[in-house]
């Protein structure tokens, strides 16, 4: 043991990455996660009669699966089944809108949040407006969206941007307000300009909050894309959802809902993966690694 020299690190610097959880542990987690959905599907299937439950209102899982497969891989052929083979195109249409609207919300929300958190003047100027616009639900923006953009994907992007903007800007603001005073003092002492402080201290220090905002914002983004496609766009999962309901294709409706859930889940995982990499320092500080 080094007595007076004190150069023994708490954690070895050579292996700073957190240990990947061993395979059996991961399998166990996966198994636990699957219990509820599998049980639900089995119960639903068993409760059905002649491929339907609730007196024919909803199809059983096997019918949903069959419809989904046809929707995903079927041959469009001569238009006997208008959904056959169109799943991927609709998934891509919705995902692209979410990506575009979400990116726009980040580009506006993060810098604005940093400025609101940092400057009392900007805060006094902008924050009240944000706070009283925020209670307006995205659905209430639909008429304006249609009036401006008509029946088009741009309207969906507009709604996603608005919906994702609030949690991003609010969480970024909070993160920028909570920066430790001595980090800023240290940076100023080292000769940092105000811009350096914002970019090199406030922004990285706010990142944990920003990621919280991103995850909330992305969830709202998926809500917004479905709502606007149901009403004001002629493609995407939201459009198919409402269209299928109109023609009584509840099997497609359910397959569509499961697809939305999967996409939302996968896009959230993507953000979490980026967060894990970007906030390695933060993860190592926390108790629950």
């Amino acid at each position, binding site marked *: 043991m080094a*007595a*007076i*020299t*004190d*150069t*023994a*690190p*708490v*954690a*070895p*610097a050579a292996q*700073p990455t957190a240990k990947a959880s061993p395979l059996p542990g991961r399998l166990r987690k996966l198994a636990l996660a699957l219990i509820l959905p599998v049980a639900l599907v089995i119960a639903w299937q068993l409760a059905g009669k002649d491929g339907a439950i609730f007196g024919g209102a909803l199809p059983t899982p096997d019918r949903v699966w069959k419809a989904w497969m046809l929707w995903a891989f079927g041959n469009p052929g001569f238009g006997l089944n208008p959904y056959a083979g169109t799943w991927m195109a609709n998934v891509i249409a919705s995902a692209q809108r979410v990506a575009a609207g979400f990116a726009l919300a980040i580009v506006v929300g993060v810098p604005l949040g940093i400025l609101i958190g940092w400057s009392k003047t900007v805060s006094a100027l902008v924050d009240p407006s944000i706070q009283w616009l925020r209670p307006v639900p995205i659905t209430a923006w639909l008429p304006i969206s249609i009036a401006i953009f008509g029946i088009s994907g741009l309207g969906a992007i507009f709604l996603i941007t608005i919906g994702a903007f609030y949690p991003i800007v609010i969480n970024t603001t909070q993160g920028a307000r909570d920066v*430790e005073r*001595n*980090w800023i*003092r*240290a*940076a*100023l*002492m*080292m*000769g*940092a*300009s105000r811009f*350096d402080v914002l970019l*090199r*201290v406030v922004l*990285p*220090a706010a*990142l944990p909050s920003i990621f919280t905002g991103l995850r909330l914002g992305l969830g709202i983004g998926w809500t917004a894309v479905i709502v606007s496609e149901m009403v004001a766009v002629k493609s995407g999962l939201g459009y198919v959802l409402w269209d299928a309901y109109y023609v009584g294709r509840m099997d497609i409706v359910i397959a569509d809902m499961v697809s939305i859930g999967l996409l939302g889940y996968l896009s959230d995982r993507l953000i979490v993966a980026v967060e894990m990499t970007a*906030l*390695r*320092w*933060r993860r*190592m*500080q926390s108790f629950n690694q």
Partner: protein
Amino acid sequence: MGTIAFSNVSKIYGGTGGVQALAEVDFHIGEGEFVALLGPSGCGKSTLLNILAGFEGATGGDVRFDGGGVTKPGPDRGVVFQEASLLPWLNVWDNVVFGPKVQGIAKPVYEERARRILDIVGLSQFTEALPVQLSGGMRQRVGIARALVMEPRALLMDEPFGALDAQTRLSMQELLLDVWQKLKTTVLFVTHDIDEAILLADRVCVMKARPGRISRDIPITLPRPRSIDTLTDPAFVGFKAEIMAEMRGAHH
């Protein structure tokens, strides 16, 4: 270079009728001098340091550094904080080169400087480590390195070893004596530890609280270079007795 002058400095928190943290502080630090501010918590010693660092403004009086008025923080006054206050997302190397980098100093120049200073503080092997992976003592070594790499004219240290265990504190005090012997930078060192103040400083300024002021300025004439052996020197014990008497008096 590195002269510090406080004349008639006062600090009141919370406007008129607020708490008087400092009252009519007058003192001067010469070039290359090592001065310790010693006193109980709440005596205004950190406030004094923060005013000199440019983190806080004085309510009254005049603070000068190398003859110029102090208005804001800057790399000419390197500050070492109590809990190091490193940027936790930057590794040791990036924390140390942060200052020179934002100041626009040429890369080959600051890289050479950073390597030399990391070598002096014994961290050459840990440049890739994040602050969270380091012990408290090592973190404070980074804090010192990050201040020294800017080649400041004065080093302002705010209870830098106060949070460390006794053994680590001794090793850090030796390190600081060693570094100061080489660089001879002006140092203002805030502490509540009597031994530490005597061991390190050329002068110990004892502070009283309510309102904060310097009650005595005691030159420490112990020969240099000093080491932790100095702590058991009879002359050291003499200074300790004198300062303890002063501090005890300061409480009544």
